[in-house]
């Protein structure tokens, strides 16, 4: 990546926000005219418990530079227990992404209530900065041009740790 | 690094490709050509007939009766539909709304563009049928594939003997091609229409197709029956036709449901060693009985 590219690179970050807390918090940030970087695109979901880890994988496969999952604080879930499941799922997800070679800084989960507009602003700003510093994600599936060699034929035996594994 | 094949020599291996084929993209049998919808007829509440013409103003292709077209929408996908009729510069397909693609197709309007490839499959044996009495038995949307044959036969009326169309649907509203059934065809051939249940707007025959078929007691002499409709209807009609004395060689049906890629390559359409895409979808009952029971 050239220097010019680096400075103009604007990451796209996807944020799944629950309708009752974080989405409301994000709206409140607007009502209060708080300013934050324009990198985040919010997907509104009824509950953070609705967010399937597969959505996150899909976002990364499609080219997301960062993904956030935001919901009510534990105990405040509009649906009582939804975010307790969210918590378990994404605690694991974070580890699994890291394990799979996706920089852990690209994935964030946050509890942001409907009144925490400033927390929303700060979280979004922080994630945008962190992700921008990382540069574009390398997870995107590129449509395989038919003239190129098939996948397995391109194997680079880059990791020779067979003994260990 | 692109390495153009500078080798102009033909390949001499016994099973290497027929080099005669043209490598331009038009020749890729899987790529659709674009067609414009130039007319839409609402046949029933859930069946519409689309008249399609190439965006270049040409007829996309000239199918034989019984052949099919793969119709696609960019975002939704593709599926196989029988071609029900054709004209100077158009083909027509009648499509029942059953799933995602057909639902999206039903949303289209005149002037909209869709993809078409084909024609696929064998066709009704119009030559072999010459000099025969023909009995067309259809149920519901099953009249669609037969219609192309009926229209062909009517166009070549002198080559064929007595023609009868026996067709039924759930209700009057569900009868497709009403203009043909009630205006165009009567007089040219026998039309026998039935609906499943009594209703106020219908004063014709009431009852299921197989029963009506039995009632009508068509003579099997020099007669070929062409049948298409829901599996259960076909099953009972076959029994009735057998009882009426039709031989298996003289009963023809179509298995277009089994077609997927259309070109006999993808591996789904085989029933035994027969490929529905290539050897079908039109089969005589005698041929079908030869095939393994995987229909």
């Amino acid at each position: 990546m050239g220097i010019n590219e680096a400075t103009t690179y604007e990451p796209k970050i996807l944020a799944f926000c629950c309708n009752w807390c974080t989405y409301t918090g994000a709206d409140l940030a607007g009502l209060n005219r708080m300013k934050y970087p324009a990198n985040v695109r919010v997907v509104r979901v009824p509950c953070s418990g609705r967010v399937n880890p597969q959505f996150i994988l899909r976002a990364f496969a499609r080219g997301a530079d960062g993904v956030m999952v935001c919901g009510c604080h534990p105990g405040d879930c509009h649906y009582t227990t939804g975010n307790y499941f969210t918590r378990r799922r994404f605690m694991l997800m974070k580890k699994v992404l890291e394990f799979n070679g996706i920089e852990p800084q690209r994935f964030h989960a946050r509890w942001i209530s409907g009144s925490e507009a400033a927390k929303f602003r700060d979280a979004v700003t922080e994630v945008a900065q962190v992700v921008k510093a990382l540069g574009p994600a390398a997870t995107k599936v590129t449509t395989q041009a038919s003239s190129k060699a098939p996948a397995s034929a391109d194997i680079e035996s880059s990791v020779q740790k067979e003994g260990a594994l | 690094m692109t390495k153009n094949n500078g080798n102009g020599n033909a390949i001499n291996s016994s099973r290497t490709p027929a080099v005669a084929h043209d490598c331009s993209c038009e020749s890729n049998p899987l790529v659709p050509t674009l067609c414009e919808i130039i007319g839409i007829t609402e046949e029933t509440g859930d069946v519409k007939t689309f008249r399609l013409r190439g965006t270049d103003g040409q007829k996309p292709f000239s199918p034989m009766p019984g052949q099919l077209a793969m119709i696609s929408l960019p975002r939704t996908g593709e599926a196989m539909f029988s071609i029900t009729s054709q004209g100077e510069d158009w083909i027509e397909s009648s499509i029942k709304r059953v799933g995602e693609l057909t639902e999206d197709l039903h949303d289209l309007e005149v002037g909209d563009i869709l993809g078409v490839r084909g024609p696929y499959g064998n066709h009704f044996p119009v030559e072999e049928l010459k000099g025969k009495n023909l009995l067309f038995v259809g149920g519901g949307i099953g009249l669609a594939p037969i219609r192309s044959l009926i229209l062909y036969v009517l166009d070549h009326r002198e080559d064929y003997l007595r023609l009868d169309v026996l067709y039924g649907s759930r209700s009057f509203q569900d009868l497709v091609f009403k203009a043909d059934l009630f205006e165009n065809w009567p007089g040219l051939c026998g039309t026998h229409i039935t609906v499943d249940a009594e209703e106020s707007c219908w004063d014709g025959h009431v009852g299921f197709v197989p029963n009506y078929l039995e009632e009508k007691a068509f003579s099997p002499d020099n007669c070929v029956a062409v049948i298409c409709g829901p599996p259960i209807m076909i099953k009972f009609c076959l029994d009735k036709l057998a009882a009426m004395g039709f031989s298996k060689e003289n009963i023809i049906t179509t298995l277009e449901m089994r077609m997927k890629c259309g070109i006999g390559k993808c591996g789904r359409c085989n029933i035994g060693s027969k490929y529905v895409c290539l050897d079908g979808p039109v089969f005589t009952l005698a041929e079908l009985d030869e095939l393994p029971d995987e229909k």
Partner: protein
Amino acid sequence: MSKVGVFVCHCGTNIAAAVDVVRACEAAKSMPGVVHAAEYKYMCSEPGQQMILDAIKEYGLKRIVIASCSPRMHETTFRKMLKKSGVNEYLIEIANIREQVAWVHDDKEKATEKAIDLIRMAVAKVCRDEPLKSQMIPITKRALVIGGGIAGIQAALDIADAGHEVTLVEREPSIGGRMVMLDKTFPTLDCSACISTPKMVDVSAHPNIRLLAYSEVAKVEGYIGNFTVTIRQKARYVNHDICTGCGACSEKCPAKVPSAFNKGLSKRPAIYTLFPQAVPAKPVIDKDSCIKLKSGKCGVCEKICPLGCINYEDEDMEFTEDFGAIVTATGYQTADWAQMYDEYGAGRFPDVIDGLTFERLVNASGPTEGHIVRPSDGTEPKTISIIKCVGSRDPKKGRAYCSRACCMYAAKHARQIFGKIEGVRVFIFYIDVRTPGKGYEEFYDKTREDGAIYVRGRVSRIYKEGDTLICQAEDSLLGKQVRVKSDLVILETAMEPAEGSASVAGMLGAAVDGDGWLTEAHPKLRPVETQVGGVFLAGVCQGPKDIPDTVSQASAAAAKVIGLLNKNEMESSPMIASVEADKCSGCSACEAICPYKAITMGEQPGREAGGNSKKVMRPIAVVNAGLCQGCGACTVACRTGAIDLLGYRNRQILEEVDALWV
């Protein structure tokens, strides 16, 4: 190919100043599926809406995207508008380009890009929106009240007075709850029984109320408007249809056991009524202490009963009833201090008693006819110590919360003592004195004026010196140890959820918090509702409170119930979970995760998917549309994707994600 119309709102200059709305509108025109795009000053205004309606007609639009303020603002407005147009009101998506774009980004270029992205996402989603139809749920116009304390009584009376049938279930042989055990109530010091027993009588006499005492809820099925509840009537061994409540049986009964109602200060027979003014005023046999039922010998009551009411063969009986709404009023119990506070003697000293025992002691209808005496020797105490916050505000030994009523309760006890014992000295050990309530602070002042000595400090130890008890504490105001010789010590113990309230909550699908109190749907705005539709909260089961608060909450819950039962049917949101039965493998992962018990495992005929295609009855998940609230947690638990959330289907969300990138 859905015909999508996109409408970009300027919101005056609110959006237009920060987003290039014309460019956004132009960009929308080339998005897949979009056949028309327009911008306008105020989309939500009358002419704005008319413009959309006209466009729907002109372009045959089938789905609508509005780029405007937050959907939380005007989603309903636009849905209502769509209803008029004939387009299903759920075929609309809103791109939030005001609160989440225009107002938060300064760079117009980037804001416009983001707005276009959000519109593209909304278009992608709207193309997969399905027409949804809300269901009308019929409502059974009957209410169930669980618990016959003052909260349950009040709620039942209010609902019944409004003209709806109520069934009141109480597990004790009589309604009345804790309040009838009390002698007087603060801050008025009026007689508790005098104000509560008339209400009990009202319950028994009310034509709309069916009272089921000595009964428990065994099972709850169904959902708002349509609950089916199984009630277990415990075996009474007395035919209440004939019994007149003459009391002859109780008098003659040879078995005597400690009376729980009187906190063990007296004994009661095995065939008994809870207290003299009990409602219903008919006895039951306690099978655990009845000699006849235990050993087969005795049968005195049967012989004595003039009407032949006694039936030793009686058994628990279960029956079901349908209800439209349920009020839980399961109340509280006082903490078992003896288990928590070894330093207070753990129950070894008979003269250390809890507040409720004192209530029975001071009560004119109690075992001592209102004479305050030491349980150990029956003498009148001269010095009494009252210890507050026993088990409350003590996360180490008891509960972290404040039981709210004890400050006033302790003051009341002091006042009652002063009223009954001449020259008595009353010490009150406290952490804080909290008296927020009408007339409460004045009551507290009067108590001190009357001579109660307030000592700030938690009693660290109670021990015996001869005949008297010593309460040892650090007076945190004086900063030194104090020891108070006391003849009687009263512990104002914490309120705890009544035993069994968790199981009731479990049956209802209602949540309980870490302390076991039932959780309200929203702590501020929905304080008497639970998150289970049609289940409401009254009284202490939701958290400690005093009688006035309990009664107000009961009336509030009743008002909610009346509001619900006044409708014949109610509309339910169609954005709920739905199961594609063919895909469901019946693993029941969704069932476990549903907070509303909205998913049950049903069966349907199908073919085995494995080695043969045998016809079988396959287990599949079934969603109860009345219970499901549409949170979607189940959809993630479902590995196959057989259960999906209408309006937020997996595919819709995935396509929204896809729309952001090529």
